[in-house]
């Protein structure tokens, strides 16, 4: 069994190699992220059976747990790192054809480092180490959003950077307070000492940390940057930001709330925040005429749904939330990839300019349709079992308020269906002004899209493929004592 640290060290080493490879051949540089994510995918899947049995804990540097940085590869960590690697692999294949202009070597290096940052956040068991990897993730996102260098991209990146840096500063203050209060940075150690400290100051630290992480997780009202950043970035990066970055941010929030603070008092608040986020996201998405902005707002809505499900904090609802997270990653990444070439061919991001795409790019349009149906939650796609699980677990809870919330949640799904169907109608049933020749996306890009299509359909038909792993992930998130025991012994 390999140590989980290779999931971080090897891609990082490969990322450092990209400039050297690029000196020899510009073209070869694009294959380095492919290799890095393929390696991570293989190793994560290889680690999964072990991690499901017993979380793998690696103490770096060979020191005892509270004194060394700990990597914690439990079910959630390994699953998410496999998800990051999978999405990273497909998107890096897509980028081989999509990213052909500009400083491509820098693009591929930054992209690989984004993967490293995301993997680091999901694997680490140390609060400050979380901050460091979080910064790698954020700073590479800031740079990649501005990659094209046009006006919109630069402004979106600045907006993202200012809000993100503010969030990081609050996060760092929170971490400093945690260290002052507990005298340790190891998550398990903090969790074990939680009872021995005055709860007032701890609450302040928790609020600061959740606010700081919440900026990246796009929890309402901290998500003002998201529609701009996700719509102005190159589509391959939008796919990664929507599919990976915000999910990883949310994971960090959940890990802090559940495992470190064990804060049951925050949960009802988070349920409401998630619900508000869902409502705001879906309604704003409905009002958009720009396809990428629409997808970005839809991401906000989906994040709200995931927060809602996770914050209910029962095994079923957390399983549903994790399932929805996987489903959103696959579907939204697919949508952004498909839209990337549609926008590239039509030359405009307005939904109306996609008329007749069903004939011009039938395969890409098909992929888009699958992603959209999955996101809305239609069977037989992956979105159906995940939404079904969430609704069922929420209805199992007592309380009229919750029932009302579930009703509104279903209404929001209808809104979601409405705006996606509008786009699909435009794509297939409206004739373009002029008949243009059929011109598909390049084969590599289509291949990466169909990787997602196949996964969406297969998991949609056989949800049991991952639901067992997700369920042990859910119990890992909810059982603080087990987490503490497996780290500190």
């Amino acid at each position, binding site marked *: 069994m390999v140590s989980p640290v290779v999931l971080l060290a090897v891609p990082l080493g490969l*990322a450092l190699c990209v400039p*050297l490879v690029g000196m020899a051949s510009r073209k070869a540089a694009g294959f380095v992220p492919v290799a890095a994510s393929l390696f991570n995918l293989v190793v994560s899947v290889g680690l999964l059976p072990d991690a499901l049995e017993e979380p793998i804990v690696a103490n770096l*540097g060979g020191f005892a747990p509270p004194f060394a940085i700990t990597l914690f590869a439990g079910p959630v960590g390994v699953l998410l790192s496999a998800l990051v690697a999978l999405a990273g692999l497909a998107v890096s294949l897509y980028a081989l054809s999509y990213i052909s202009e500009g400083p491509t070597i820098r693009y591929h290096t930054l992209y690989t480092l984004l993967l490293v940052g995301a993997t680091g956040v999901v694997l680490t068991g140390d609060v400050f*180490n979380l901050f460091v990897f979080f910064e790698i993730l954020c700073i590479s996102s800031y*740079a990649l959003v501005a990659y094209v260098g046009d006006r919109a991209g630069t402004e979106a990146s600045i907006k993202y950077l200012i809000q993100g840096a503010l969030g990081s500063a609050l996060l760092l203050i929170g971490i400093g*307070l945690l260290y002052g209060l507990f005298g*340790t940075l190891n998550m398990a150690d903090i969790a074990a000492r939680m009872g021995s400290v005055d709860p007032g*100051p701890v609450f302040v630290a928790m609020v600061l940390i959740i606010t700081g992480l919440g900026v990246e997780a796009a929890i309402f009202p901290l998500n003002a940057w998201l529609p701009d950043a996700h719509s102005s970035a190159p589509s391959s990066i939008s796919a990664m930001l929507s599919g990976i970055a915000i999910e990883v941010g949310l994971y960090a929030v959940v890990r802090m709330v559940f495992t470190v603070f064990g804060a049951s008092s925050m949960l009802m608040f988070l349920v409401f925040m998630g619900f508000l986020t869902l409502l705001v996201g879906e309604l704003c998405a409905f009002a958009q005429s720009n396809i990428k902005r629409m997808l970005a707002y839809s991401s906000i809505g989906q994040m709200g749904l995931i927060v809602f499900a996770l914050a209910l904090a029962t095994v079923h609802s957390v399983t549903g939330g994790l399932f929805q997270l996987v489903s959103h990653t696959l579907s939204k990444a697919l949508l952004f990839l498909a839209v990337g070439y549609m926008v590239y061919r039509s030359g405009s991001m307005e939904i109306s300019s996609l008329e007749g795409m069903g004939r011009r790019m039938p395969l890409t349009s098909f992929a888009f349709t699958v992603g959209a149906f999955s996101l809305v939650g239609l069977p037989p796609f992956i979105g159906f079992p995940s939404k079904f699980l969430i609704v069922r677990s929420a209805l199992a809870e007592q309380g009229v308020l919750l029932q009302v919330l579930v009703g509104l949640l279903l209404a929001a799904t209808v809104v979601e269906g409405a705006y996606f169907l509008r786009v699909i109608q435009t794509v297939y049933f409206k004739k373009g002004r002029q008949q243009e020749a059929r011109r598909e996306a390049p084969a590599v890009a289509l291949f990466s899209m169909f990787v997602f299509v196949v996964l969406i359909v297969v998991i949609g038909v056989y949800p049991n493929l991952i639901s067992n792993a997700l369920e042990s992930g859910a119990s890992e998130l909810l059982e603080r004592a087990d987490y503490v025991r497996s780290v500190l012994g």
Partner: protein
Amino acid sequence: MRLAVGLILLAVIGVGIAVSLGGIPFGAPKTVIGDHYVDSARDDTGATNVVTSVVVGYRAFDTLGEVTVLFVAALGLGAVLAAAGGGGGRSGVEPASLILRVGNAFLFPLILLFGAYIFSHGHLTPGGGFQGGAIIASAFLLVYLSSPGKRISATRARATESLSGLVFVVVGLLGLTLGAHNFLANFLPKGVPNTLFSAGIIPVVYCAIGLKVGSELAGVVDGLMEETG
């Protein structure tokens, strides 16, 4: 309006932090972790500077992440500025005065030497890779000021960055395979404390960090000075 909202927000954050700091008395010893590091750093890592032994020993993984952050920023800066179709020299350059040029020719090697001293003695005295790297970068800044047309070789700078980063990663992976079978484990002999060749991998790693930080910060200065418009 904006000011009012800002002040209210500020007041809330202020009260929160003040309440929280009330639980952390200033100047009182509070942590076991810190005491443990102070007590056992010399035996564990062989470095006499405890901060260094934490930065490159106990929490070396953070440091690897941190140099990566700087690497990301330097790359991102290059990508952002190059996006408009790069290149071009620096416009509006005036030659610097004789004093600056002669003084720089004299000072440049000395500053480099000082930077190298700082990062190679990080395990013995205050200082280390970051400080030394910054000093090296400031030597290059001086070169830019004294002869504005001059450029460092981008290829060489990038190669230095990548190679020194790779040294760090490879040292870490060697620790995984040799010795303690742990990433970034100190597999070299720890030597006699308070001598230059002691503390195992720490001086090696700190030299790599120094070169990496130096070339990255110099690259940042270079990137910002370059006229692309």
